[in-house]
């Protein structure tokens, strides 16, 4: 059984744009991306929407549905009331290319700023060895599908315009995955404080709230990094401990 549903979709490009109304029949089990594709085929053949896997694993179809950053392919139509107008907008934090497609290349530039993985020497038999208990934390961060919903919703980037000073939650997670890696030897704490802007995050957990992979970005990634920054720069006891013993990574 299908129902006629009303949509408002942002249409435009870099210069200008507006919300345009559409109607389409929505059937059982449909997600917002299905409805957008149906509208595309029925009445808006030139409407741009980025998508790929339709399974919540490629991170391509990030948009804002009724103002909430979401993956269009994982947002079920029956999450909304039958008479509710569904609004679809491109991610607000990034420049629009066309319609629902935004230019997320700023994120790739942030990635390039990060000091890469620097593993310690191999064991005598030529292998690396690490234990599951040591990489449990890092594995959570590896679930990231780079949908950039967290970057989009982070108010430091979205509203405070601090994109020059803060790499955003996605890259704090990448930094955490490197810093907590048992084989890694690089020290990124000075950059995390100064260049990547850990102090700009005020831990309101919006990044965690929108993560489709349910990564505990704030609790397991950003706050542990903030604590490591405190170890290095704000804790006199840790400073004394480093002076007396060593400055090596723990």
């Amino acid at each position, binding site marked *: 059984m299908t129902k006629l549903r009303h949509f408002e979709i942002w249409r435009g490009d870099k210069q200008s744009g507006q919300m345009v109304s559409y109607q389409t029949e929505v059937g059982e089990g449909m997600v917002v991306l299905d409805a957008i594709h149906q509208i595309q085929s029925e009445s808006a053949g030139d409407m741009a929407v980025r998508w790929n896997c339709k399974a919540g694993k490629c991170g391509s179809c990030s948009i804002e549905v*009724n103002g909430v950053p979401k993956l269009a392919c994982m947002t079920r139509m029956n999450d909304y009331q039958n008479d509710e107008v569904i609004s679809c907008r491109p991610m607000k934090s990034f420049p629009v290319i066309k319609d629902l497609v935004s230019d997320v290349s700023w994120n790739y530039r942030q990635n390039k700023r990060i000091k890469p993985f620097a593993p310690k020497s191999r064991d005598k038999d030529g292998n690396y060895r690490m234990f599951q208990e040591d990489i449990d934390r890092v594995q959570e961060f590896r679930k990231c599908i780079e949908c950039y919903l967290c970057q989009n919703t982070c*108010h430091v980037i979205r509203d405070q315009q601090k994109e020059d000073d803060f790499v955003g939650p996605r890259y704090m997670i990448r930094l955490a995955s490197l810093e907590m890696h048992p084989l890694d030897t690089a020290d990124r704490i000075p950059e995390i404080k100064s260049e990547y802007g850990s102090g700009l995050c*005020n831990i309101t957990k919006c990044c965690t709230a*929108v993560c489709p992979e349910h990564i505990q970005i704030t609790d397991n990634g950003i706050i542990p990094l903030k*604590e490591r920054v405190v170890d290095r720069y704000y804790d006199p006891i840790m400073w004394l401990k480093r002076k007396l013993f060593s400055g090596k990574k723990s």
Partner: protein
Amino acid sequence: MRMDHTMQRSKFLTGHRTDNWWIEPVLVLLGLSAFLAYATWAAFQGNHYYSISYLSPFYSPLIYIKSGVAGAAPLWHSLLGEWPSWWPGFLPASPALLILIFPGLFRFTCYYYRGAYYKAFAGSPPGCAIGVIPQKNYQGETWLLIFQNLHRYTMYIALLYIVILGVDAIAAFVHEGIIGLGVGSLILVLNPILLGLYTFGCHSFRHLVGGGKDCFSCSRSGAMQGIYKKVSWMNSNHKLFAWLSLCWVAFSDIYVRLVSMGLISDWNTWGV
């Protein structure tokens, strides 16, 4: 390199969300305001903080005691004796004023509360994907709020308070040398338990017991990972325990105060 934003920035409190995003920040605003108002009022009373063998957690530890005040604890309860003469006259002689600042600072610098009150009180942001209060140059926790980084020191003091309130809870089962049980005993025993669940789930404590390490298997015993996992469980429920412990500590004070004032009777085995 700045991004070229086509979309306009949202004005304060505006956005396109159609859900009830404002409920949580409003509840936080009301909850924290109510607690702050009551705690301040109770701290400035300086009386009715002790009854039977129940000591209000707002007044523990008792550094000095002013004798002769209604509902004051007996003088032997005091760590340093009678109320000092140097205390400024414009402030009430209330033992709570000497000690409440420490748990207050612990909660003020707590990572959960920070996120919650930045949203509810500072509108930074009021809700996720909702326009913030306009700021010329947002500094986050790098400038005026840099002191938030001292959270771990307030946590060390908070750990001490759990011990102190634990002793108070045990003392609440003894009245005039007789072991017994009262409703107040049960209330006061739940207090350090909830505070413990909140404090041991603190992000700084989690960092201390393994979060700061890259390698659990490198430690001499396997104990660290076990402790880290338990602390991580409490940490994942930090918000819940933050609110439960906050409400319970206020409720404990209210209960002791009402019993001390004679407005309610405590059901207990001592028959007092």
